């Protein structure tokens, strides 16, 4: 039996500097990131590079499977050739493992995004790069860039829309409002950012920067959560 002898050290094809890693190591790194994310209040930058490297690993593994199976022309019998079967099994398991790591990483992040949606934090608003021309995925660590991947931004947008539509069914209850009963109906607030005019039950209030107002708490709760106003105690 003539075995396909040389497996190309895969990582050296694309990147000569990359150290040879055992399959699944990169996926593991991703999961460790996810573990850290769980403990954080904010969403750390999306690990574009690692995600890409893991998907590349999966593609390489898939190519390897195809290469191993090629000489058999569709009639592979595992018990006749245990060594090849073992190689195939290893490849398959590594792919499955990588899939699990990728899925878990993204799930932790989407759950975080949903949570932020419910607490009323506008991730997109906060992290929009100032220059407007976003070089997607190239350098996420450069300051001011979004810590979300483009797909996550889309997800956040759509989820927000969905949540708004759901909330819209009840005009008299704010589903994302605080569960704390207010101590005072009216509170002192300071305006941190210009927010224009807002309509309230008692008429229109004009929110200009640095002004100080005495307003009904229910009217401005959202604005406090979004960072337009600061509550003064």
């Amino acid at each position, binding site marked *: 039996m003539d*075995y*396909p*002898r*040389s*497996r*190309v*050290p*895969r990582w050296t094809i694309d990147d000569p500097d990359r150290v*040879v890693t*055992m*399959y*699944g190591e990169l996926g*593991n790194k991703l*999961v*460790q990131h*996810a*573990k850290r994310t*769980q403990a954080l209040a904010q969403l750390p930058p999306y690990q574009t590079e690692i995600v890409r490297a893991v998907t590349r690993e999966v593609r390489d593994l898939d190519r390897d499977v195809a290469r191993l199976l090629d000489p058999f022309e569709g009639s592979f019998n*595992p*018990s006749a050739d*245990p*060594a090849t*079967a*073992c*190689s195939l*099994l*290893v490849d398959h*398991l*590594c792919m499955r*493992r990588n899939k*699990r*790591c990728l*899925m*878990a990483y993204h*799930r*932790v992040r989407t759950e975080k995004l949903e949570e932020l949606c419910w607490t009323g934090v506008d991730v997109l608003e906060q992290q929009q790069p100032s220059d407007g021309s976003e070089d997607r995925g190239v350098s996420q660590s450069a300051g001011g860039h979004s810590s979300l991947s483009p797909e996550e931004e889309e997800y956040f947008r759509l989820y927000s829309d969905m949540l708004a539509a759901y909330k819209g069914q009840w005009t008299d209850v704010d589903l994302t409002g605080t569960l704390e009963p207010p101590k005072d109906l009216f509170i002192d607030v300071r305006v941190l950012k210009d927010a224009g005019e807002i309509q309230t039950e008692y008429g229109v209030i004009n929110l200009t920067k640095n002004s100080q107002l005495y307003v009904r708490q229910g009217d401005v709760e959202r604005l406090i959560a979004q960072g337009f106003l600061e509550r003064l105690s």
Partner: protein
Amino acid sequence: MSYYDIDSILTDAQKLPCTFELEVPGLGILEGNPGDDIKAGTRIDLPLWLGEMLSIGARLGTSRLVTLDMPDALAERVMNALKADPRTVDLRALAPHFYTLSERILEIFEEEEMVDVLINTFKKRAAEISDHAHNPRGAVGDGVDFLRGLDETERQLFRAAHDRAKQVRIWAGEAKKK
């Protein structure tokens, strides 16, 4: 242990010694030598997710690919230390997910005595953890070494005990929120 559970994934990443039973050409990357072959009888530390599945062939009666051994974290030496005094062992240094790893290992190996030792260990240490969580002694003092040696499950237990005590004080009106 759900598919998406981060701790469960990290548990599966912990390594255990495996011995290959047949020669596999081109699989040297597992050893860190890509392109090379793996000889029969080679001993490599493989992550649980890989080693477990490779060893299953043995049970199905088909060809045996690898045989597994106990990881160092659950070696006889460790068991003896745990029998002597569970509170002095640094579990984190042995394996960051010590208990979940043991759980997975005991699904594979039949070790009645180890189950008892581990249950006893958890009980003894849980009492100690609860004591530390309710009576914080600060960053210095005798408890520091012990707390540093908690595995992931124990850390979560510590956090839960600590937070709950705080919440009860808030509920009783003894402490202010935040």
